[in-house]
């Protein structure tokens, strides 16, 4: 379909990236991280753009995935066939437990209660002294795929991340276009109308929240493997804020917005320190504010607003 073209083009570009000048080690590392946070951002966009649930605790889902890798690694289990399902189930389980309460609220209360649950996960991680507590945990080997150390190869890891991102995007895209997704989208636009025709939005939102949690867990597994190190700071509320910002920076006009937002965000985070030195956040913060103030449709809405200015 035509509206999927930008997303497909973006994914194709990522597939070609290693061969069109982004094949160096640090570039591949940056791209992999962008794709991993892209998975987190797309799953969050399912909530924000699809269900109207602005979660400020999504980093906890990634954290659950990452800590599942850590806990299993510590127990000597490094097979992806076990790690991945456990991680996604753990994140989904956390999403289910907290979602049962959080989804009862809406608007600002939802933002704050997800923030609070995120903090709960953060403090839990910080208190896990068996896994390094505040100092974090270093992975000495990446998760094994079918008994091989496939993920240690940068190029292979690139395509694994790309595959996971494509899967996440495709799944969320499918969900939003389904019966289920229609109820979600309708409840976001007009909850009362949806109830009046006979739907209670709660179970639909909860399921979406759990699915987004599981996908966050997927991102977490890759994150742990990419960094080979996991610390509680990955679960902090600032991280959740960054994920939310990626979604909004990209724009809610389509799920590809979240992918683009993640790439631009990670790019800025990489490039600004090179350009500006230690205190790059002095520029980054105001950039963030300006983009919220002036980039209302996000990056994917930019062409349309530019056309608007051109006409005006």
């Amino acid at each position, binding site marked *: 379909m035509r509206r999927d073209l930008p997303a497909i083009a973006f994914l194709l570009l990522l597939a070609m990236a290693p061969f069109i000048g982004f094949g160096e080690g640090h570039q591949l590392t940056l791209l992999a991280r962008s794709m991993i946070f892209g998975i987190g951002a797309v799953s969050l966009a399912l909530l924000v753009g699809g269900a109207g649930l602005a979660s400020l605790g999504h980093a906890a889902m990634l954290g659950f995935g990452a800590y599942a890798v850590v806990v299993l690694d510590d127990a000597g289990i490094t097979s992806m066939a076990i790690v991945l399902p456990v991680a996604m189930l753990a994140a989904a389980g956390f999403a289910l437990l907290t979602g049962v309460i959080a989804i009862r609220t809406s608007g600002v209360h939802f933002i704050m209660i997800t923030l609070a649950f995120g903090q709960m996960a953060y403090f839990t991680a910080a208190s896990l002294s068996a896994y390094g507590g505040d100092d974090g945990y270093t992975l000495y080997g990446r998760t094994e795929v079918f008994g091989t150390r496939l993920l240690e190869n940068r190029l292979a890891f690139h395509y694994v991340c790309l595959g996971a991102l494509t899967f996440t995007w495709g799944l969320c895209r*499918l*969900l939003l*276009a*389904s*019966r*289920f*997704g*229609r*109820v979600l*989208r*309708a409840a976001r*636009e*007009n909850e*009362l*109308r*949806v*109830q*009046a*025709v*006979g*739907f*209670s939005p709660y*179970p*639909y939102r909860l*399921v979406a929240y759990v699915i987004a949690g599981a996908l966050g867990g997927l991102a977490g597994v890759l994150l742990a493997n990419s960094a080979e190190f996991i610390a509680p700071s990955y679960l902090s509320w600032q991280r959740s804020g960054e994920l939310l910002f990626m979604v909004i920076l990209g724009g809610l006009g389509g799920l590809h917005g979240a992918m683009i937002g993640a790439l631009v965000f990670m790019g800025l985070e990489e490039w600004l320190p090179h350009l500006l030195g230690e205190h790059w956040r002095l520029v980054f913060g105001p950039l963030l504010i300006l983009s919220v103030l002036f980039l209302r449709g996000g990056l994917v809405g930019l062409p349309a607003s530019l056309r608007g200015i051109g006409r005006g």
Partner: protein
Amino acid sequence: MAEPLLELRDLQKSFGGLRVTDGVSLDVVPGEIHAVIGPNGAGKTTLINEITGRLLLDAGRVIFGGEDVTHLSMAARARRGLARSFQITSILPGFSVLENAALAVQARHGSSFRFCRPVAGEAALNGPALAALEAVGLGTRAALPAGSLSHGEKRQLELAIALATEPRLLLLDEPLAGAGPEETTRLIEILLRLKQQYAILLIEHDMQAVFALADRVSVLVYGRLIATGTVAEIRADAAVRAAYLGEDELA
């Protein structure tokens, strides 16, 4: 008389010290339009909200199709065939006109916990949705974004959404509100056609419309029913004339 489809028994509701519904009992039998009229602030919309479950009652019972639905949620009542239109248009502006109606069909046809198949092309939903749109004269507008419709068309869409839920009873809250003279004529025609198929509880300000449409009329004043009867009886009722009609409407 036939078994009533909807029966309200002694409904009570107060907001703080204000009694907004005070011992209301009425019924709607299959095939009739039962209109509820009354001056502004009489508690008409409140009554609809109580019947649909948007507001919880302090006391009294709502019986629909022989079942006590007093403690059911709005969604559960809708699934049993209680459909409403809103006084202030409540549609999904970002959805297409067809999708607005298809969502309502979807509520009655199979599970909505289906995750894979694209819903936009589901003929089982779009067919009945289109039929509902055609029943209110919006068939040609199906592909437009609902937000782009004119005010009168949005009122028609409200009706279509209600019809698409395959209701047994329509609760229409001022379906003519804000419509111009031409639109009013068109909407009254539509309502007359709907009358053949559905029982309707109609709340309306436009007396001409009420007298043209209703089989029975109940008059609500300050949360109390002061009279129920045929159009002729209500026109002749002294208490009604004093409380309400005498003002200006019965010229």
